[in-house]
């Protein structure tokens, strides 16, 4: 038995029956990382002693007769994007500016994972401060796509997706501000869900764009993703934007019956330069849904083409305010200056990478005197129009169905000199953040030459994660894609 290949559901069953220990499971991940991560570069760092210590503690609890009914992730190794605060561990957001920062506390998601029994380990790579779509903007080097090392894993949660698909962990927690969970899930071939805004606490997550950021899980299949979401979701008094709505039993709600389900196909998405092979894989997925009893109907999201422009005004504006805290005063690296002003400029000039600088400067500009109404307020108004489109479309159907990305994983370096082209890779994922609704990406096939995964996106109603996961699960269980494993 090759332990690291197991799904979370398979592993928890073997842990409960004492067939394997959590320590063995953790060891198998560490061995796998030693074997493949010099090629993938998913992990920035790992505290092995701490990870094995947590696993041994889980084994003690398992030895006392506890199982996944008590703690759904008991003994399961789960990795974290380098954006989460874990007590006494580094959190760099893949940036130089945080230096040797170590978090003085556990964020809520980390606390919840630990309460669920998970072995929380590692810091996985990302685009600096979650700004990017390729995990190339990292001070710790780029992450490679496990299906083709010359290609990007997507981003910004590219390290999470690569680590899950390369079987270096059993699941991973990322964040999604404009597609940063769903886009890498699609390009690497795993399942990832961006929950509804307010579903998961953001306390202890380094903020990028506070009205758009949401935490979510990534795993090798829908059931595992549902298990992880159940563990991290819920209201938190430390995040005033988290919503006090009860967390349903996501795993219990999984069902293969799609009779009567209506899926909306947004017609504006189909003209948008989709790669022909992605298009045909997507069309086959639509047919499969019809075969499962779902009804597909065309819907309209007339403001789709304005999503990326709206997003890049609002997200950068919010980022310019959020990232003001990285000033070399309270934490992180400081570059001295004669006065506070030159200290700030020197520290931020040296510590931030190019993409972060571009976005902070853009955000500062759109909020500056004389431009605020023309850019920022206008974009907020267009956001209302995009939200109205979604409300109308989702009143007619149970979920929207689209490709996650118009193409498969692109070559490293291909878009790094052209930020606008990079931004446009989020065209299908970005509206979901502007509207605050939920979205999931799951594998729906592969291109033939080269063999690269294609992602299917389902977009649901606010707090409709349970329905969305059910619709994803029915398709997944009727297709072979989630069983494909990359050879490394």
């Amino acid at each position, binding site marked *: 038995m090759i332990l690291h290949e197991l799904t979370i559901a398979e592993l928890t069953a073997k842990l409960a029956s004492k067939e394997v220990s959590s320590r063995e499971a953790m060891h198998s991940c560490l061995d796998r990382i030693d074997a493949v991560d010099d090629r993938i570069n998913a992990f920035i760092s790992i505290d092995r002693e701490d990870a094995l210590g947590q696993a041994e503690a889980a084994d003690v609890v398992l030895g006392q007769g506890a199982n996944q009914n008590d703690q759904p992730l008991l003994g399961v190794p789960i990795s974290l994007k380098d954006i989460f605060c874990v007590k006494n561990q580094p959190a760099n957001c893949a940036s130089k500016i945080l*230096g040797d*920062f*170590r978090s*003085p*506390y556990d964020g809520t998601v980390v606390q919840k994972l630990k309460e669920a029994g998970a072995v929380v380990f590692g810091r996985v790579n990302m685009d600096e401060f979650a700004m990017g779509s390729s995990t190339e903007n990292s001070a710790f080097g780029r992450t490679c796509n496990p299906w083709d090392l010359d290609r990007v894993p997507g981003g910004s949660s590219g390290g999470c997706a690569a680590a899950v698909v390369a079987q270096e962990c059993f699941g991973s927690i990322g964040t999604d501000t404009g597609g940063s969970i769903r886009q890498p899930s699609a390009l690497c071939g795993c399942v990832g869900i961006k929950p509804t*805004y*307010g579903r998961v606490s953001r306390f202890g997550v380094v903020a990028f764009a506070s009205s758009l950021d949401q935490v979510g899980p990534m795993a090798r299949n829908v059931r595992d993703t549902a298990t992880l979401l159940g563990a991290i979701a819920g209201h938190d008094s430390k995040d*005033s*934007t988290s919503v006090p709505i009860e967390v349903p039993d996501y795993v219990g709600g999984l069902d293969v019956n799609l009779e009567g389900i209506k899926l909306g196909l947004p017609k504006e998405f189909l003209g948008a330069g989709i790669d022909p092979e992605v298009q045909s894989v997507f069309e086959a997925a639509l047919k499969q849904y019809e075969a499962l009893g779902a009804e597909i109907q065309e819907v309209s999201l007339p*403001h789709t*083409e*304005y999503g*990326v*422009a709206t997003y*890049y*005004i609002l997200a950068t504006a919010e980022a310019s305010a959020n990232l003001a805290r990285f000033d070399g*005063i*309270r*934490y*992180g*690296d*400081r570059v*001295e200056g*004669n*006065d*506070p*002003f030159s*200290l*700030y*400029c020197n520290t*931020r*000039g*040296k510590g*931030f990478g*190019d993409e972060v*600088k*571009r976005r*902070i*400067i853009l955000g*500062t*500009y759109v909020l500056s005197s004389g431009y605020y109404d*023309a*850019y920022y*307020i*206008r*974009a*907020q*108004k*267009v*956001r*209302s*129009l995009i*939200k109205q489109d979604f409300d109308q479309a989702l009143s007619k159907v149970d979920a929207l169905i689209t490709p996650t990305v118009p193409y498969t994983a692109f070559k490293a370096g291909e878009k790094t000199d052209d*930020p*606008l082209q990079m*931004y446009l890779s989020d065209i299908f994922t970005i509206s979901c953040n*502007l*509207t*605050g609704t939920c979205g999931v990406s799951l594998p729906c096939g592969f291109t033939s030459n080269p063999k690269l995964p294609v992602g299917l996106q389902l977009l649901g109603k*606010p707090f409709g994660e349970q329905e969305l996961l059910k619709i994803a699960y029915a398709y997944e269980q009727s297709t072979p894609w989630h069983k494909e494993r990359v050879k490394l």
Partner: protein
Amino acid sequence: MSNSDFDIKYVANLARIKLSSDQESRLGAQLGDILGYVKKLEQLDINNVEPMAHAVPLHNVMRTDEIQPSLTNEEALANAPKKGNGLFVVPKIVE
């Protein structure tokens, strides 16, 4: 929404980011392209549309005003690049 007056030096200064002259020209050109792209939004009629700041209605969240556990002085200063006497040390601000 003209961006002909986008002055990278001025805005980088507002953002407290020191740029090299090479970065000024490269980032300046890229931001010019991006600002050109976002002009798309001018095509839309936004009269009578309310701006949307947040996806879910937000309310002020209050808790009772009582002391709760928080970081100790030592913990709060643990990551400081420069500290002394239990305080953050910064360059002189007042002349």
